[in-house]
């Protein structure tokens, strides 16, 4: 059925009637959706308060069974309930809505229907957070959001605008573990039909993801997340990117004792903002001190500067400092086979404290980061580096092979799909027609220029 837009209903009762009358997916998409959109489009304020309201004091959502165990039957009416719930949760003084109702909706909704109105899903996510904050228990929003973010996207590789909301909440309520299942699947797909995304959604998701992983001491993954945030396409630098850059640098210091430059495709605006901004200067000084292994200067910088505190990076800075002796010992192991504890102490900045050095070595061996033995006479012999290298099992190699093959296939498929995409073919044809050498690299045909600006060089 795809007639003209029916007359818009004027009260929630008649909306409910239409909701109940649309049984098939096509009906929902072609009749119910235009009606609801029309309602909101015509008079947003009024429509929202009507949709979010009650019918004669009775909660229509409860009546449908949401919150009382009838969610499975109500799933057929997902679109309608989505509009009602999202409208209700964004009202300034919403009618009483129970935790059960929200959780039940989130665990039973029909994703296909919900994707028809991606804007309402985003609204719902924000509404849930607001609702939980108003009731004074922000943790309550975690479970509904987790269900939403898991069930809504077509596959976990899709980014939605629920992602940043959920992960941010995980960070503010310090339930970092909850975010892990979501964070462990890297985002590779973005579809504006699935979710109405803004660039900040991507930045915020990867930034908060990095924060969560960093808090869990999964620094390698955290670095990946921050790197994605930093290297996201940008024509001007976003404050989130600069913050991510700061954290990325600190985490690199923890991991490797030095910073690595971000990928080539990082926007120059971001690198410039990081180098030149006044808020990053303490970081640059600190990084420099660590990189030239000037421990004293690093400690002093970390103590004096409030910038780290205001950025909430003091924890990371402290970890960088704690990590210094570990990295120093690792460096020694590259150079020496056998070394007395006193000498190690002198090299890593812990002179006259043999006990601490011994404890450090023992810690490192226990953590599996060092393979060495301490002799009774107080010398440490480091074993060959390759003794630490694990012999890979057959299974490991095969998994790696399968992964590599998959990756290649994915890329090949992508290549093919680009090759037959309209844009590409048009561009290629256009280039070939104009000039007759379409497929070649333009730059390779330009003669190299030199000695042109003659006078300027003098």
């Amino acid at each position, binding site marked *: 059925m795809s007639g003209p*837009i029916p007359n818009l209903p004027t009260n929630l009762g008649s909306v409910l009637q239409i909701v109940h009358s649309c049984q098939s997916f096509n009906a929902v*998409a*072609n009749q119910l959706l235009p009606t609801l*959109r*029309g309602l909101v*489009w015509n008079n*947003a304020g009024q429509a929202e308060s009507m949709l979010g309201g009650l019918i004669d004091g009775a909660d229509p959502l409860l009546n449908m069974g949401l919150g009382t165990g009838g969610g499975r039957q109500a799933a057929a009416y997902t679109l309608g309930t989505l509009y009602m719930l999202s409208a209700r949760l964004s009202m300034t003084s919403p009618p009483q809505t129970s935790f059960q109702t929200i959780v039940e909706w989130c665990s039973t909704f029909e994703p*296909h229907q919900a994707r*028809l109105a991606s*804007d309402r899903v985003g609204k719902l996510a924000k509404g849930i957070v607001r609702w939980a904050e108003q009731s004074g228990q922000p943790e309550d929003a975690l479970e509904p959001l987790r269900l939403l973010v898991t069930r809504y996207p077509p596959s976990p590789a899709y980014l939605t605008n629920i992602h940043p909301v959920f992960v941010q909440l995980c960070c503010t309520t310090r339930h970092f573990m909850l975010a892990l299942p979501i964070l462990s699947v890297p985002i*590779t*797909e*973005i*579809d504006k*039909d699935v979710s*109405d*995304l*803004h*660039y900040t*959604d991507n*930045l915020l998701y990867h930034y908060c993801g990095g924060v969560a992983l960093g808090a869990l001491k999964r620094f390698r993954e955290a670095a990946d997340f921050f*790197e994605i945030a930093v*290297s*996201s*396409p*940008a*024509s*001007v630098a*976003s404050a989130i990117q600069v913050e991510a850059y700061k954290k990325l640098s600190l985490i690199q210091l923890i991991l490797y004792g030095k910073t690595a430059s971000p*990928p080539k*495709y990082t*926007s120059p605006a971001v690198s410039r903002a990081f180098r030149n901004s006044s808020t990053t200067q303490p970081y640059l000084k600190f990084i420099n001190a660590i990189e030239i292994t000037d421990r004293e200067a690093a400690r002093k910088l970390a103590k004096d500067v409030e910038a780290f505190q205001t950025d909430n990076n003091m924890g990371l800075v402290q970890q960088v400092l704690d990590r210094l002796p570990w990295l120093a010992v690792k*460096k020694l192991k590259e*150079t*020496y*086979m*056998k*070394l*007395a504890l006193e*000498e190690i102490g002198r090299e890593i900045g812990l002179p006259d404290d043999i006990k601490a050095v011994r404890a450090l070595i023992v810690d490192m061996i226990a953590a599996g980061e060092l393979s060495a033995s301490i002799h009774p006479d107080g*010398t440490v012999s*480091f074993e060959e580096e*390759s003794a630490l*290298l*694990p*012999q*890979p099992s057959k299974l*490991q*190699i095969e998994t*790696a092979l399968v*992964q*590599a093959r998959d*990756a290649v296939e994915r890329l090949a498929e*992508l290549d093919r799909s680009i090759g037959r995409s309209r844009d590409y073919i048009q561009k290629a044809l256009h280039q070939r027609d104009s000039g007759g050498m379409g497929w070649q690299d333009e730059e390779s045909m330009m003669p190299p220029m*030199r*000695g042109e600006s*003659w*006078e300027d*060089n*003098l």
Partner: protein
Amino acid sequence: MVSTLSDEPEVEEQLAQQQEQLQPSTSAAASRDFMSRTKPEVKVDSDHPFDLETYISSYSGKTRARRLMHIASCCPTLAPQAYQLAISTLLTMRDPHAYMHAVAAYNQLPGVMQVDQDQAWIDRVRAENQNQREKLEVELRTYQSNMIKESIRMGHRDLGDFFRAIGDSGQAMKHYTKSREFSTTSQHVLEMCLSVLELLMEQESYNQLQNFVYKAESVIDPGTQNADAKGGPRKKPTNQTGMEDSPVVQSKLQVANALGYLGRGAYEQAARAFLQAGTQLGDWSKMITPGDMAVYASLCSLATLSRSAVKTLVLEDEKFRVYLEQEPYMRDILEAYMNSKFKAVLELLERHSARHLLDIHLWPHVQHLTTRIRRRAIILHFQPYASVQLSRMAETFGIPVAELEKEVIGLIQDGEIAARVDSTAKVLKAKIKDQRAALFSKALKVGEDAQAQSRKILLRMRLVQNNLIVHEPKGKMQPVVQSPTQPDIRMAD
């Protein structure tokens, strides 16, 4: 004594002025001074022989004076002699500032017979310079009003030569470059370039040398170029013959280029450029002698080139032999190096360090080059061994164990030798690598990295495709309210 003292401030002032004038052209030299280094104090004794008379006799012109001044400022034992020679050299030239500076410096030496400035000479030269300058400037103005290109060029060139002679390099540079605008043939450009190169070499402005070498090479016709001079990219064929195809010019350009590399610390390129310069340099004693060539090229090669390259390019090269004959001790060093007699190499380097440190172009690099040669020697020495006693090694090199240990550790940390030190037993041991495990772990890591990277790039591509690009917040984007007529309803699947 009294007269010189009272004259001193004036001299200083003039020097300062001169320095200021030099500024535009010698900013490069200024930046070079950053990485330097006060002048070294050079000892000359029976262990470090140096014969000033023979050394300086092969130079002429300005470089002779400048070299003498350098020697005098570095080496207290030779200073009086060097200053005297410099003064007598300067008296044959037309630069009163330099002369007064030399005299003042000489008079400041302890325990020398004071000499008086030859005020008559100064006045005469100054007057002459003034006259000449006016004459040349009048001439140039006449040419300019007549609009004859060739004459204007010559006018500028003559003024450039004149200013160079009286030691005003800023003005000289200005006129040389001006003359380029009025050059009509490539030969003129080449002439100008060579003049500028000589000026720059005199001023030790190494950073600009390459620029002018390229400019000169760009006007040389590749068709008629002499086979003797290879290398150096050139283009713009002009189909003109003349002085540009002479091998002398080619060699000069190579030498100037090499000197530029040396001055900037690019020792490997310097070595290669010196070695390519060919034998046709002719007499360029106002700049550089064949002996200098031998020293520069050998030291740079030893510090940077591989053993086989040193053998084929330096020791066995027919052309370069001509230069090596000028400085036989250099051949000894090279041969000792090839025979792995590193102790001899280091001792010979030390013995002739005076010769190197007193060289006006080489002195800032001697320390650096020596260190590099020593490091390379240590690497070469350790190569065939699985483990070496540090004390034995120190003996071979003739340096103390502690110093050697420091050097070795530096080399390990730079990744130059794959070995580790047993600090308690003072033994250097080569690393044993489990190639199989290393390969596996490396392959796995590379695979992981590649996949992670392609994933990140994919995400980035999607972001760009969906226009999720960070942009200026122009009036804060409001979330778009969708109209019901938008045809974005997904088809049922």
